[in-house]
């Protein structure tokens, strides 16, 4: 049984391999780009609100509200990164209902790439907000002896982000595959509906956790986020 779409190689030329994960990622990118182009085409401020504009405003307002509630900071700077993460994961998980489409998030390479993006974005936003010295200072905040644990925590939470998303999506696909061979009539549909719900929740959780990590690097006085962050490091 195939654990991930990585092993399906569609095209090979010497050492260059195009596997199914890359192709499905391209499809998701095309869907997102085409959709956003369609939605923002001819956007006007006058007259009755069109349905496309309503959709766009609902999405952006939802993302802004969630970012504001999670980080207690103004969402403007974080919206492009967090919103892209959420939309990409949500769309690639939701397209799972199309037969033949395997979600690219069900491959460890995609989720590792997304987690590394978060890993890089945390010091990026931290340095942008507090400067290099100010950012590095939070490693030695309670005492110098905590610095190794902070660094280990940075790596372990990146690993946890990647494996969490991969495990959830891949297990959904595998369970549907196993059920197809045991009880092919009705139960795979139920599990697939559950998989849709899990996919959306995981997209939300990935985005919220990325926001929590970034918020802990950018805010100095906010104790609440730092505690959430430490739980995240210790618990997962």
């Amino acid at each position: 049984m195939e654990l991930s779409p990585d092993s399906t190689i569609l095209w090979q030329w010497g050492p260059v391999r195009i596997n199914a994960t890359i192709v499905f990622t391209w499809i998701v990118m095309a869907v997102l780009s085409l959709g956003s182009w369609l939605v923002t085409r001819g956007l006007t401020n006058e007259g009755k609100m069109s349905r496309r504009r309503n959709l766009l405003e609902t999405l952006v307002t939802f993302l802004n509200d969630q970012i504001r509630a999670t980080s207690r900071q103004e969402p403007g700077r974080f919206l492009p990164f967090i919103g892209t993460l959420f939309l990409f994961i949500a769309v690639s998980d939701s397209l799972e209902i199309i037969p033949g489409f395997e979600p690219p998030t069900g491959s460890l390479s995609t989720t590792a790439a997304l987690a590394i993006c978060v890993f890089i974005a945390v010091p990026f936003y931290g340095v942008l907000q507090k400067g290099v010295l100010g950012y590095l200072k939070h490693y030695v905040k309670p005492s110098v002896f905590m610095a190794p644990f902070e660094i280990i925590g940075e790596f372990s939470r990146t690993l946890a982000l990647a494996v969490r998303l991969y495990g959830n999506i891949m297990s959904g696909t595998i369970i549907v595959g196993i059920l197809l061979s045991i009880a092919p009539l009705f139960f795979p549909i139920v599990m697939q509906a559950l998989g849709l719900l899990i996919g959306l929740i995981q997209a939300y959780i990935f985005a919220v956790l990325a926001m929590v990590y970034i918020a802990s690097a950018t805010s100095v006085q906010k104790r609440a986020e730092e505690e959430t962050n430490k739980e995240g490091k210790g618990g997962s």
Partner: protein
Amino acid sequence: MNNIGLIGMISIIVAGGTMAIGSIGPALGEARAVSQALSAIAQQPDASGTISRTLFVGLAMIESMAIYCFVVALILVFANPFWKYVIEHP
């Protein structure tokens, strides 16, 4: 018993044990988190938005431990590296 039979037997037994033992802790933790969140919502219905958002994030973190066990069990059953080695070098 030859190597193939031994590796297959141990893999399957350990995969079952991984799921069985590894899901006890997350199950207890999730039950406790949900019951606490429900009583918190019952006491303060106004804060239900914040509580449920935190609950979802916390549940995902607890559940990820069970997911790690599941991934390890799946690797043992479907993509066992030792099994592949034994098959290739008989």
